[in-house]
């Protein structure tokens, strides 16, 4: 059972606190993505799990064993690095078998495992080549093959796709997902790309400034972000935020954006927001929930009109930017329903999907 348990984990570099007391439980065979902006401590956390970085405080447990003082070579972990870190002086076969040779595995067993991994990854014909002779995608496969061959208890990925071009990245993403389904094992995957995290992981851990902001499934992260940071980080294009005043009206509560626009809060949320009435709040809404004017399905849909500032056609949708008070709002509209730049356009805001952030705590309420 390869569970991983991080308990009150700290990492200092001199005066800099890279990781500030994080707690995390990862289940057996679970695929967990650590995601966050650069410098958030996600790679440091991964390296502490690997044993490449000393732990300043707290505990790392793999399976039933506390591994704080266990050197990396004895942790039975494999890692895929951002730059692949292939041994340039060895052939693909030697690269993949290196770990097994160090551990004195029998020749036949090595052969069997390398062949098996090569089949999974479709790199059978590359085994005699040197890393120099491989393309970026092939190197990526070899790096994963090297990890698969080892059959480790934990698989660590450190931004494995960020050196690939956009198209290959999408392709390898799918590949990694397939491989995880085939080679069941515990995976910790570090990335700064929230789409990668959303598509791959069973559970996402969003980190910022050395602490965990939120842990949850991709769906939870998207629909119920708990902090301002998570709300802004997850989703692409990212959520719109604009300051607002939560006012009491005859029917209940309303989000008052400016003198002209005031959007009523759906009734079922009124109780939840009641204690924030008459306070300055931040209103958050995703672009996909601000659309061209549509038929209202229920009372939560609200209409607004605005002049179009910029258009960004994406093919299936067009991103429409318009000003709302001090901020620019991005909407996602049907290309055929879009007005020209400078002209007025009608939008529908789906208030069922709204978020309200308390600026004093940055928590989503």
């Amino acid at each position, binding site marked *: 059972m390869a569970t991983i348990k991080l308990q*009150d984990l*700290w990492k200092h570099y001199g005066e800099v606190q890279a990781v500030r*007391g994080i*707690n*995390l*439980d990862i*289940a057996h065979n679970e695929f967990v993505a650590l995601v966050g902006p650069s410098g958030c401590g996600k790679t440091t956390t991964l390296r502490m799990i690997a044993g490449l970085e000393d732990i*300043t405080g707290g505990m790392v447990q793999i399976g039933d064993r506390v591994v704080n003082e266990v050197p990396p070579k004895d942790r039975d972990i494999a890692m895929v690095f951002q730059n692949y870190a292939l041994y340039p002086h060895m052939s693909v076969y030697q690269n993949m078998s290196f770990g097994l040779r160090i551990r004195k595995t029998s020749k036949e067993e090595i052969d069997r495992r390398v062949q098996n991994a090569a089949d999974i990854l479709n790199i059978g014909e590359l085994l005699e080549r040197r890393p120099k002779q491989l393309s970026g995608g092939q190197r990526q496969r070899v790096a994963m093959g090297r990890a698969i061959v080892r059959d480790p208890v934990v698989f660590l990925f450190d931004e494995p796709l960020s050196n690939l071009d956009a198209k290959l990245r999408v392709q390898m993403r799918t590949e990694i997902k397939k491989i995880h389904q085939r080679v069941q094992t515990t995976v910790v995957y570090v990335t700064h790309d929230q789409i990668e995290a959303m598509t791959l992981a069973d559970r996402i851990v969003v980190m910022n400034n050395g602490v*965990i902001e939120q842990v*949850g499934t991709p769906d939870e992260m998207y629909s119920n972000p708990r902090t301002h940071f998570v709300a802004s980080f997850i989703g692409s294009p990212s959520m719109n935020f604009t300051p607002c005043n939560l006012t009491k009206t005859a029917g209940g509560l309303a989000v008052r954006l400016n003198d002209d626009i005031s959007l009523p809060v759906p009734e079922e949320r009124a109780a939840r927001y009641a204690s924030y009435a008459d306070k300055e709040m931040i209103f958050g809404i995703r672009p996909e929930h601000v659309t061209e004017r549509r038929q209202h399905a229920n009372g939560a849909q609200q209409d607004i009109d605005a002049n179009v500032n910029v258009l960004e056609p994406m093919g299936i949708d067009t991103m429409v930017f318009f000003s709302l008070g001090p901020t620019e709002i991005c909407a996602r509209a049907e290309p055929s329903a879009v007005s020209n730049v400078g002209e007025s356009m009608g939008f529908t805001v789906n208030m069922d999907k709204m978020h309200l952030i308390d600026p004093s705590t940055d928590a989503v309420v």
Partner: protein
Amino acid sequence: MVTATEVGGAATSPPLTFRSRLRRSVGPDTDGYFFVLPTVIIVFCLIIYPFGLAVWYSVSNAFIGEETHFIGLENFQYIIFEDDIFMLTVRNTLLFAAISVVVKVVLGLLCAMLLLRILKLRRFLRGAMLLPFVAPTALTTLAWWLILDPTYSHINWLFEHAWPFSLFDMGPYNFLGEPTLALSSVIFVNIWRGLPFFIITILAGLVSIPDHLYEAADIDGASTMDKFWKITLPLLRPVLAVIILFSTIFTLADFNIVYVLTRGGPMNETHLFATYSFTAGVLNHEIGLGAAIALFLFPIMVLTVIFLLRLVRRDSEYEL
């Protein structure tokens, strides 16, 4: 599975364990000490300890076969105020280092820029040019001795027999027997030996200057001279500073060329610190005096290093 405690961090870091305190004070890689141990032992026993010994000698009357005792700054007093040869040595060393380094920088720049424009045969030419630097100095200096020898001098032979020199009444010159000529010869041979290092290093520096800078300058209408003064030289400055540093130090401390070519002669006129220290300490057995002479080199070198390092430090890091 997901618990509220996972979110956020603790307010403060927990007390450090003994191991992590140890690591914080000595660093994560304690085995590093074993890696550097052999070097530390060798450096201590064969460089630092002897250096201390040299300092002790310089303030003692160390003489082969006699008891050594402390005499204060007498040795320094003697060489500074009473020893004419030492004054000559200081003058020679400074002239020797200054002239040969300046000439090497100028000729090095010139040759490197010529070599940069040559693509065919560049490797071959570079290889041939480096030979003086690679070959054993003592042996090649012997060849220069033959070339400059009063009786066998190839140069005097040219002056006497070869057109157009034969038209004039030139020479024969006693290249190694006349003080000024002897010092010039020594400097000349030093330049001959050290120039390749300058050429090759400056060439490597030139190659690392990206072409697009020159292209941009072309578009801005810069002349060849502009490009040299405004682009090449400023970008070469770090490289130049480093090679000047190295070359100055090794030229100041040079022994082989002078010792083989003139042995400090004629009449001790061409001594450098190294040869004079050798003469005093080894040939005349006055170890204390020899050590004092050699130690004099130290402050001169330290000042040179500080001066040149300052030159490198100052905004010399460019992002290319």
